[in-house]
């Protein structure tokens, strides 16, 4: 399953790119699984996801929790807690 990943703020800076398309391996069913899998893809990903508890996620532009299922998602975004306003 090919999926578009987007990164913002320091998650984007640590990974070194704003977005990418990835082919997900079997067994990656939730946002939490995806963060664990991404963290194993190299030093920059390990750095970005070193404290997954602080990372927020969105599936198709809606906030989701780490236990959210990713089946059917087109775009998944990872970012730090928001600081707008």
């Amino acid at each position: 399953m090919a999926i578009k990943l987007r990164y913002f703020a320091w998650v984007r800076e640590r990974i070194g790119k704003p977005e990418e398309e990835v082919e997900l391996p079997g067994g990656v069913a939730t946002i939490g699984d995806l963060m664990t899998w991404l963290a194993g893809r190299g030093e920059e990903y390990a750095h970005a996801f070193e404290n997954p508890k602080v990372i927020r996620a969105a599936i198709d532009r809606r906030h989701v929790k780490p236990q959210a299922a990713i089946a059917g998602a087109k775009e998944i975004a990872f970012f730090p807690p928001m600081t707008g306003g």
Partner: protein
Amino acid sequence: MAMPATITVKVQSEPFDVAAETAALTRGRTDVGALVTFTGICRGEENGEPIAALTLEHYPGMAEAEIESHVAEAAQRWPLTGAVVIHRYGRIAPGDDIMMVATASSHRAAAFAAADFLMDYLKTRAPFWKQVEKASGRNWVEAKADDDKAAARWTRSGGSNDQAAE
């Protein structure tokens, strides 16, 4: 018959005109008795250190959708005659406006409450991130736990606001 609420949501890099936006909330209608506005402005220092500018990053598409859904929720919870939310992105110099919220209603209680609600939710749910530019370098602004607590006041349980707690 009640006129429909006048709702405006904009995410833009350009400056905005608070006076023009609020005038649009009362133009052509006589059911507005209260207008509350809030403007967020870029401060010139952080922790005693002068800052050169703020740069706001946002998630295009999601930022608009999140703000629109919260404005719709505010309009359901309070009898608003109108609301405006404008949030800028890009580089913003000290003294310049970052964002504004305006809420209008027949009476002040609804206008104050809706503006407060919108600000608390925008702080914690709208996908924007501030980076501070100083002589010593750049750093991302850290989210404040107080902002999460403020947003939680508006949930029925008074607890989590549907996102991972830190």
